[in-house]
């Protein structure tokens, strides 16, 4: 088991991160234009100074190697993350100054914006897990009844109505018409309600579908009948016997999905004007902020890798057959 996990981490996680960073680095460098491309070109002295400040005058391979070196963790004090999310203080990772926000470093931007996205994402993930798995299990237990059809209809609706449609609609209904909540902003605790539910419901729908499918399959198997026959209560059958197998495909899907949910959905953060990292993703690409793009990609890539790894661990624990292969 331990060997399987270690292999997984070495053979998959590290290469994935490396490829993501390399691809992003060179793709944006080979794209025409740059962070200082304006209508009017800068005076050559200023351009030279800027290039020197951002090390843009070095050969490309040197810039690349230097960046990779700055990315390597040089110490390990995760407890420092408690006071602030600065990756430099905790791991010695330097993400360089931002091109667009002249006075801020990418470390600082991530330190202020990632916690917002994480808070929104964690709450949304809890909503998605509770609603999705709950509804999926209930639908599977009452398979082919009106409850099942209701859950299926709801989860299909969730799949077909994207967040950038449901978000404004929820905002229109609950904020503009009913005036229960603010249409956007991120100032008081209740401002989190709308974005959390819009994001959570979007992820709950596919989760309910996967859970329902998996549970129906497991509940039809012989060992469940045996458990029922020997008099196990309904809740024991579900929680102790069926869930472990029934949630396998849902857990596999949750790996990449939770990385996306935790680092913030750009659409949801834009609609509700949440100052999170998801919004920074696209803005930084269009403004050609080289270091900020790379920084967000590093964070996002790390989350994907970690979440996939956790999903793998969970799957291996739930299905020992996988670990043996």
């Amino acid at each position, binding site marked *: 088991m331990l060997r399987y996990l270690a292999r997984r981490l070495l053979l998959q996680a590290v290469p994935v991160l490396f490829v993501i960073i390399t*691809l992003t680095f060179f793709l944006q460098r080979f794209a025409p234009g740059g962070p200082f491309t304006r209508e009017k070109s800068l005076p050559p002295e200023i351009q030279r100074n800027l290039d020197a400040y951002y090390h843009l005058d070095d050969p490309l391979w040197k810039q690349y190697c230097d960046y990779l070196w700055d990315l390597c963790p040089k110490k390990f004090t995760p407890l420092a993350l408690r006071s602030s999310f600065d990756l430099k203080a905790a791991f010695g990772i330097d993400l360089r100054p931002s091109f667009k926000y002249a006075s801020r470093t990418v470390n600082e931007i991530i330190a202020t914006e990632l916690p917002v996205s994480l808070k929104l994402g964690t709450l949304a993930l809890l909503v998605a897990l509770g609603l999705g798995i709950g509804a999926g299990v209930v639908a599977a237990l009452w398979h082919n009844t009106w409850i099942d059809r209701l859950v299926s209809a709801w989860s299909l609706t969730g799949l077909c109505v994207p967040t950038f449609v449901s978000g404004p609609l929820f905002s229109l209904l609950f904020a503009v018409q009913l005036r229960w909540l603010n249409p956007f902003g991120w100032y008081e605790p209740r401002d989190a309600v709308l974005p959390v539910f819009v994001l959570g419901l979007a992820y709950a729908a596919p989760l309910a579908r996967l859970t329902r499918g998996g549970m129906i399959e497991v509940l039809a198997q012989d060992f469940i009948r045996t458990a029922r026959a020997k008099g196990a209560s309904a809740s024991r059958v579900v929680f102790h016997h069926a869930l472990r197998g029934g949630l396998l495909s849902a857990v596999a899907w949750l790996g990449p999905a939770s990385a996306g949910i935790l680092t913030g959905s750009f659409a949801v953060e*834009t609609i509700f004007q949440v100052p999170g990292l998801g919004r920074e993703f696209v803005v930084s690409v269009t403004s050609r902020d080289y270091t900020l793009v790379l920084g967000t990609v590093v964070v*996002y890539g790390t989350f994907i890798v970690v979440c996939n790894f956790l999903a793998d661990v969970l799957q291996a624990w739930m299905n020992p057959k996988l670990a043996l292969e």
Partner: protein
Amino acid sequence: MSDRPPQLNIPPPEEAAAGLSPWQDAWRRLRRNQLAIFGGSTLLALVLLCFVIGPFFAQSWREQNLAHGLAAPSAAHWLGTDLHGRDLLARILYGGRISLLVGFVASFVALTIGVTYGAVAGWQGGRADTLMMRAADILNALPFTIIVILLLVFLKDPMQRFDTWLTALPGLSGWQGAGKILVMFAAIGAVEWLTMARIVRGHVMAIKKMEYIEAARALGYRPARILFCHVLPNALGPIVVYATLTVPAVMMLEAFLSFLGLGVDAPMSSWGTLIKDGAERMEECWWLLVFPGGIFSLTLFSLNFLGDGLRDALDVRAAKD
């Protein structure tokens, strides 16, 4: 005694002659699925509306009439007008052309890449297969939004030049913005083929162990011929099903990109840009959000119904990995 069935049980000759091929059988099952039929006919109606009736629509999608800006739905403008007084119905029909076109063409790109890649990996097996699938795994872990966005930005200038060249040709002056759409086809297609590749690989690996493939090999056919004439036709069921399910995913991605302002440029519109415009002024003009959002969701519903129906009809195991 022989274990042949008694003579009486042999069906009458007429019925025996009307034996069903697997595809006819699937079609019969699909016809009985009301939701799938509803999805299929809605989709057909939408395509007809957008591509056939839309171009002849009396009101222009680009003609501005500032005096009638932001008018609520009325007899003159059934779905109201936008900020510049353009008829929303005409714009939705026009936007549908872009959205559906991107959906279908990008899915086709994804289908071609995915089927070829998966078939080659599954057919070769061994080290080539491991290498190809590991590469696909890595691609799968990439933040795809970033890749598509980077591609859109990266190819912006070449496409601008392509646009100028294209519109300079006689009779093609109305094709402005075609370059951007081509980039979207390529960019979306390039990230959406991974699931298809994995599914095709699995089926090819199963099929290549069948006896009829061995027979084809014994007959001395070249591998390419066996792969494309014998293996792939037998994997067509799952390919059709997942192609149908790729279209809504692609359309969602296109709308998402347009919503972020990275999709088609004004004065063209897709459903994504219409939703974006609507979301910006939903407080005073609900119709700008509700109608484009509604028709977009309706399309996704239809495609999903059709895809699920096809999956049941062709009896493809729900093998989402």
